[in-house]
């Protein structure tokens, strides 16, 4: 008997014998059922785990972004502009790579008898990575008075939930002393070592620009149009901006010439690059602790009509007392200061 015949005989016997057939079917069913169920459960569990891992990855990314936010907020100033209102100004620097969105500014004010705080919602205050932003916000804090002295603290909230404290303007010991000194006579300080005059030509250019001449000894003031330059620094203790308006003037009194003889030069704007006097005057802002050149060249307020000395040939040389009569605003309130202590000799 060949193997083929043997196999055929066994197969015929297997198919002819129905005993145990149901067990085969049952077992097959069971195996299929178990495979189907276990596969579906496994695949579904896998998808759930994927969702969970995705959520963990998202959270880690969020945490990483929160930790990567690197913002510096400096030079913060507080000005109580009116009852219940404070103006908070600050410089924001984002040296990090992530852009930062600011949502809320909080401020806290207190003194011996008062405590108050409030918040201001910010919209569209975004600082890209590596960018700077000057932020100025008017906030309402109930109970604040412009005449009061307060200690302020403030902080910014970012969209990712970080809290960024606002740091006040740094001031050195020298600045404090200067500020305390100027508190008695006014917030503006003049640099007495750099007092310069120029000759103004027909095209309203300053000569020689930018060096000029030492203004303590002036020649040809009677025959030439003259412009003066002084350097002023804002040392306001509350670190507010000072804005000079067109009424600001430099005037010289000649006491030895009698009858209160005087000359006036009104404030002008000068192009810092070319040294040309601008045709119209726009208010000049002096930021805290920044030395700023201020020019006086016009014989008329708000205009650019060149000015000369009114001294006659017989009146020169003459000694004059120079005064800076400065007017404008400090913060949002009127401001005025007269800076004396400068005397010059007009030689010719």
């Amino acid at each position, binding site marked *: 008997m060949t193997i083929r015949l043997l196999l055929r005989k066994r197969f015929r016997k297997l198919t002819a014998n129905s005993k145990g057939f149901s067990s085969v*079917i*049952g077992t097959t069913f069971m195996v299929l059922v178990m495979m189907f169920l276990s596969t579906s459960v496994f695949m579904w*569990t896998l998808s759930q785990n994927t969702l*969970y891992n995705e959520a963990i990855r998202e*959270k880690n990314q*969020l945490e990483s972004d929160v930790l990567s936010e690197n913002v510096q907020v400096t030079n913060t100033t507080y000005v109580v502009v009116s009852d219940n209102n404070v103006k908070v100004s600050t410089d924001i620097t984002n040296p990090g790579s992530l852009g930062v969105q600011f*949502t809320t500014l909080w401020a806290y004010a207190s003194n011996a008898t008062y405590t108050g*705080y409030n918040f201001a919602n910010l919209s569209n205050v975004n600082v890209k990575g590596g960018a700077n932003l000057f932020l100025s916000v008017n906030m309402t804090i109930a109970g604040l008075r412009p005449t009061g002295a307060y200690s302020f603290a403030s902080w910014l909230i970012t969209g990712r939930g970080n809290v960024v404290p606002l740091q006040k303007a740094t001031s050195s010991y020298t600045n404090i002393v200067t500020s305390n000194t100027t508190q008695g006579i006014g917030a503006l300080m003049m640099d007495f070592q750099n007092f310069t005059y120029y000759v103004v030509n027909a095209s309203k250019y300053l000569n020689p620009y930018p060096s000029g001449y030492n203004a303590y000894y002036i020649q040809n003031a009677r025959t030439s149009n003259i412009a003066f330059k002084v350097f002023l620094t804002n040392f306001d203790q509350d670190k507010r901006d000072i804005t000079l308006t067109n009424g600001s003037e430099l005037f010289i009194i000649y006491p030895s010439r009698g009858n209160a003889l005087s000359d006036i030069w009104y404030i002008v704007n000068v192009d810092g690059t070319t040294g040309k006097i601008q045709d119209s005057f726009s208010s000049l802002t002096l930021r805290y602790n920044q030395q700023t050149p201020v020019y006086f060249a016009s014989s008329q307020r708000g205009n650019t009509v060149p000015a000369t000395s009114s001294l006659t040939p017989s009146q020169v040389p003459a000694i004059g007392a120079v005064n800076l009569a400065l007017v404008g605003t400090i913060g949002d309130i009127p401001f005025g200061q007269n800076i004396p202590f400068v005397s010059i000799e007009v030689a010719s």
Partner: protein
Amino acid sequence: MKLKGIECLDMDLRKVWKLLHERRAVSTVVSSVILTGAVIAVSFVVLFWAQYRSSAYNAQYSEAMNADIAKLKERLAFEYVFYNSSAKNLSVYIMNCGRINKTSVQTVYVSNATWFFRFSSINLKFLNGNNATGLDMGEEGYFVLPFVSPSDSLVTGKSYSIKIITGRGSTFDHTFIA
């Protein structure tokens, strides 16, 4: 040819007659059919039962997984905590900076090294004063915790911890000075 066909038909009819009237081995066939049917029926029952059980397991697992994912996405930032010593209440300003909406505050604990106080009914409000059941993404809100009993009031200038338990069970801590 015609005769041969009639003979074949006659032989087939005889086989059917014999099959219908032959009783031997009938019970074996019937029992095999019944047994096979029963096995198939039981198999389907087992299939449906197993599927029902696995669906229940799936639903339970899915619920737990979604809850965990929602917890992971929750994040609260403390904007400001202010203790009013005269009114003896603590104002807590928070922001939902997470990635999921409807973040509610369930319980709040205020504590220091030797003392703690639990607040379970929190009246969460938006910053404009309207009541809020929860904070959506990016929204800010606050709640006020009253310290009614003098023995439970905070000491100004001292450091305290505050822990918020959200409705989903996440916890967020913060330290403040009263």
